[in-house]
């Protein structure tokens, strides 16, 4: 009888080339984009090395590209140079590239799953912290720096210290009007922004099993906001149905072999975790962030907290600084906060289900006259699907701007910058100071909450909103 193993331990063990501390791990899929790869290619070429496995590497452009007027090209000369460098490096090394004019282009963490490249049991890396998204499939996926990107390009491997394991058990059923985004914000509020450091989280329990793949990706995506190295969810029928038939998905005998291997991945019943927390899904409500890190959130029917309510002096100090940056007064009801912008998109909430949830809330309504609202689909495929389903018409009729795919205002490297001092209800993942533009004030919310805020001009409890419609 072998020792019971967790999902993480199984996937880790299957990728160990050299079993030391740290171990040398084999990478199944290396995703690259324009911002964190140019220096890696330059380093590789300076050393006279080549890409070991271009057939396990895929590139797309997402971070710094425009979401309007693409036929005119990229105006920002620095961004253009960066994108051109990736196109050229991919061509030179024989790497498949979903470029600016490719119908498969999109945010790297939307594209991988959508194309069937992301799959259970794989080890996936990318020079981007939200690589944790792919863990939704039972893959081990984590973000790396540029030196590591170069190492993967040259060797298809990485030296990694073995992380500890953490179980997050979510029992019960998510109430109506409470989204996957609210669940992950609730988890981060509980464990803090460093609660998962040096750990790989496995999300388990009834509420997790009930989630669609899109919702699971929202959860795993923000694992990094809890500090975790990665987040994972055991693959099941929901996972297999999502992967089957996608362009790169295995077929025929490979599909049968895959199913057999994947069905063995879930954690053994007696497997032990180094740490565990549990959350009751039925007690969750829609969340809104008030501060400058993703743990600084409150339920929408609550108020801006007072720094004095924090026991830890560092957290008290951080709260005071956050309120000053956000220009908020303690005690202000969250629903009294007026917004100037709505950003619907990102690798957290830019998938088709996210757009459906938002469209449902705004159908037949108009965006408040003082709000500028934008939808940036996570990929051009999501965009095409939303247009085919009539969602694009719902958004444009309501007054939303309907854009091409990319990271956009999530990190404001492209022209979609939120002006200083203005307030944005955003479905993205980080509310850091300056994240959406210097001086911009970000409030993290779910897609339905963002849509309702766009119409009302301030935050509203979407549970009452939908009931009233």
């Amino acid at each position, binding site marked *: 009888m072998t020792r019971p193993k967790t999902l993480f331990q199984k996937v880790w063990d299957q990728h160990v*080339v*050299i079993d030391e*501390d*740290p171990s*040398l791990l*084999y990478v199944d*899929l290396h995703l690259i984009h324009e*911002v964190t790869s*140019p*220096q890696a290619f330059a*380093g590789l070429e300076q050393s006279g090395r080549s890409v070991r496995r271009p*057939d396990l590497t*895929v590139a797309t452009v997402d*971070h*710094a590209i425009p979401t309007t007027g693409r036929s005119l090209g990229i105006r*920002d000369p*620095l961004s253009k*140079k*960066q994108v051109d460098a990736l196109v050229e490096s991919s061509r030179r090394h*024989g790497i498949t590239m979903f470029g600016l004019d490719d119908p498969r282009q999109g945010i790297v963490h939307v594209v991988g799953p959508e194309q069937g*490249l992301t*799959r259970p*049991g*794989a080890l996936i890396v990318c*020079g*981007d*912290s939200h*690589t944790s998204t792919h863990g939704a499939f039972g893959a081990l996926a984590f973000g*790396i*720096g*540029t*030196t*590591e990107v170069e*190492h993967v390009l040259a*060797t298809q491997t990485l*030296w990694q*210290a073995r*992380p500890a394991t953490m179980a997050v058990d979510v029992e019960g059923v998510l109430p109506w009007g409470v989204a996957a985004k609210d669940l992950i914000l609730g988890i981060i509020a509980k464990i803090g*922004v*460093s609660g998962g*450091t040096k750990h790989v989280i496995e999300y388990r329990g009834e509420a997790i099993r009930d989630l669609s793949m899109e919702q699971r990706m929202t959860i795993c995506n923000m694992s*990094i906001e809890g500090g975790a*190295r990665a987040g994972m969810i055991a693959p099941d029928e929901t996972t297999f149905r999502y992967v089957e038939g996608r362009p790169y998905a*295995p077929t025929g005998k*490979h*599909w049968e*072999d895959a199913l057999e291997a994947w069905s063995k991945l879930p954690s053994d019943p007696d497997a032990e975790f180094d740490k565990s927390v549990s959350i009751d899904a039925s007690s969750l409500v829609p969340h809104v962030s008030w501060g400058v*890190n993703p743990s600084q959130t409150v339920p929408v029917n609550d108020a801006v907290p007072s720094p004095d309510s924090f026991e830890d002096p*560092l*957290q008290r*100090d*951080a709260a005071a600084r956050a309120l000053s940056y956000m220009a908020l007064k303690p005690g202000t009801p969250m629903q009294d906060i007026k917004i100037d912008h709505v950003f619907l998109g990102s690798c957290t909430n830019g998938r088709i289900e996210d757009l459906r949830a938002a469209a449902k809330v705004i159908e037949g309504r108009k965006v408040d006259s003082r709000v500028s609202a934008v939808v940036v689909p996570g990929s051009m495929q999501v965009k095409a699907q939303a247009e085919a389903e009539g969602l694009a018409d719902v958004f444009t009729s309501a007054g939303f701007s309907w854009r091409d795919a990319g990271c956009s205002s999530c*990190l*404001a*490297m492209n022209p979609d910058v939120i002006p200083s001092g203005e307030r944005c209800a955003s479905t993205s993942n*980080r509310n*850091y*100071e*300056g*994240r959406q533009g210097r001086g911009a004030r970000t409030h993290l919310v779910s897609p339905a909450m963002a849509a309702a805020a766009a119409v009302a001009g301030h935050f509203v409890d979407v549970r009452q909103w939908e009931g009233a419609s």
Partner: protein
Amino acid sequence: MKPVSKVTGRMVPLDRADVDTDQIIPQQFLKRIERDGYGEFLFYNWAHTDDGTPSSDFVLNDPKREGAKVLIAGPNFGCGSSREHAAWAIQQWGFEAVIAPSFADIFRNNAINIGLLPVELDEEAVRALLEVAETHHSEVTIDLIEQTVRAEGLEEQFEISVSARNRLIHGLDAIGETLQHERALSAFETRRPDWLPITTS
């Protein structure tokens, strides 16, 4: 990578928890394809007012901090984005080490990979260093071989993994080291199941 085994220099105190990499190097400076030139943009938004002039109250703008080599910060330093530009900016400003109660995982790896020394001390020791750094301009010495930190009235041992320590002390080229395992690598590749992704077919 330049080997590092001992760092002696003055400190800069940054008494904040959860300093994210967006603060260390804001997004507008990530558009360059070069690996250098980031030092002047370190903590740009904290170091500059809205019109781009240096903020006189930000610690890095104090002329007395010029030439400092060790940044002292709060817990969970370097959280958020994986951008290695954050570690580059700190190193290119002139820092050779960062001392904090804890580091975010990706930042720690990035720092080690470029020879920027991340030193973890307990909160109490970091608090003591912050106080020394805020009131005096005395030096701190980090000895990676002995794994000690010495400053005015303080001597602490620190933990670091054997592999990270070796890499830093010898300035090892990780890729060269890995490629020496070619036989193990090729053998692994032949065992790889067919159902794993291939991007070119």
